């Protein structure tokens, strides 16, 4: 399970666009190896949140630190799985997955070993020489997941990665994700609108408010063992709790 020491600390994070306050003084810790979900009502600025936490967008105030240092792409190992399909179309599955290791200058034999392993774990080995235009949407997101995990990141952020998938594909890929996480124990921040998905995947759920977005509440889910059963009474109870916290409809 997760260690007590916080791995990533987010402190007083705020983001303004001129006069519009999108993120308002958000502070929380993430523990090493934890699977944290962030949920909020529709329109709560979750994409801004993702972009600011990973530093693709600068924050107006506040800090994101890994250990004691401010987060920096060049120093730290960050992976981001976008909501949009993000496979580079001119690269095969293999070349897509290895790009993070390539950028960070890993030696070729190590790249080969790591990529092979992660392709095994995500069931993509038979497709390693295929181009993205030859595989389905679900497989493309698996490639994105493989690419994100293979660098063993300090922080892995996922922004509603399964939102555009079919429900049955979604269940299958969620299970793959849980199995992959259990094996590798990466620190994951998973942002989603889908409350059932949040309860299915995470150890802890942060609930955000509408804009100006703050943290409303926190719900612990680590006592539920994987694989989880969506009909289990405790699962249902937690899902209801989260739904009531988020509910705006």
């Amino acid at each position, binding site marked *: 399970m997760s260690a007590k020491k916080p791995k990533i600390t987010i402190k007083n994070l705020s983001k303004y666009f001129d006069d519009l306050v999108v993120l308002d003084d958000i502070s929380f810790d993430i523990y090493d190896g934890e699977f944290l979900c962030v949920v909020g009502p529709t329109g709560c600025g979750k994409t801004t949140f993702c972009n600011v936490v*990973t530093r*693709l967008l600068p924050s107006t105030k506040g800090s994101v630190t890994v250990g004691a240092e401010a987060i920096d*792409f*060049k*120093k730290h190992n*960050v*992976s*981001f799985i*976008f909501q*949009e*399909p*993000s496979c*580079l*179309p*001119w*690269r095969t599955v293999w070349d897509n997955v290895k*790009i*993070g290791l390539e*950028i*960070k200058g890993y030696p070729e034999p190590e790249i080969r070993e790591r990529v092979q392993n992660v392709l095994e774990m995500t069931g993509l080995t038979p497709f390693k020489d295929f*181009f*993205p*235009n*030859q*595989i*389905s*949407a679900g*497989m493309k997101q698996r490639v994105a997941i493989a*690419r994100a995990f293979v*660098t063993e990141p300090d922080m892995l952020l996922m922004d509603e990665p399964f939102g555009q998938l079919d429900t049955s594909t979604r269940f299958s890929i969620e299970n793959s994700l849980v199995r992959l996480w259990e094996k590798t124990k990466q620190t994951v921040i998973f942002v989603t609108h889908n409350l059932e998905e949040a309860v299915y995947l995470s150890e802890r759920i942060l609930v955000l408010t509408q804009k100006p977005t703050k943290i409303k509440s926190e719900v612990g889910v680590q006592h539920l063992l994987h694989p989880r059963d969506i009909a289990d009474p405790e699962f249902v109870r937690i899902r209801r709790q989260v739904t009531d916290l988020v509910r705006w409809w």
Partner: protein
Amino acid sequence: MNDKQKEQVKTVLYNILSLIVVAVLWTLFSAWQQSPFFPPPADIWKAFVGLATQGDIEGIGLARHIWASLIRIFAGFAAACALGIPLGLAMGLWPKIYNRTRAVLEPIRFIPPIAWIPMAIVLLVGFSRYAFLIWLGAFFPIFITTLLSVTRVNPVHVNVAKVFGASRSYIIRKIVIPSVLPDIATGMRVGLGIAWMCIVAAEMIGGEMIGVGRLILKYAELIRMGEIIVGMLVIGIIGFLMNEIFIVVEKRVFRWRSEVSID
């Protein structure tokens, strides 16, 4: 034979049919007109054979004309790519430079190559006259397409590399360039087509007696329509072939761009 092959065969047959229909209509029309200005296809064929085997009134064969023109085109085209692609990339990556120089660039872009002829005659001699005019035709399509292709790079792809800590140089080399290559290829193909269409204008002012454009002009003076039409058709057919070959190469090189097949 499956449906797709059937459709392909049908397409080819219909194309041949269209050509035959045009030839028949043309023959009928020229028989009706009985004018030296509308030679029937049979006469055009005779003229073609004549030019190919015996050459034109100066004895220069059709093949030599075609070869001379192709050399000129490729020279001008190569120069257009050599300048247009790097300049387009640079201005695409640093758009401020483009935005601040548009007052100079855009008016020049809209001057047709033919309008440059007097200047070309005065300032240049020989081969460079041809190359310059052809370069003008090809440069702007290549330059503008390259420039616009940079703006169409998918920001998600750039972010994928950025998050892993890639340097700007890496992003340009490994993300921007592969992204824009298909668009640049299209720009090049369009540029080549336009350059080829400038060949007549270029050969009007160049000094030499060979070239398909020059061929047309020679026979224009003699009002020999058969040979003129042969020249026109040769230009059209070669342009068409160059375009088709380019497309085939594009499809092969950029096969990652083809239609999605969901497993």
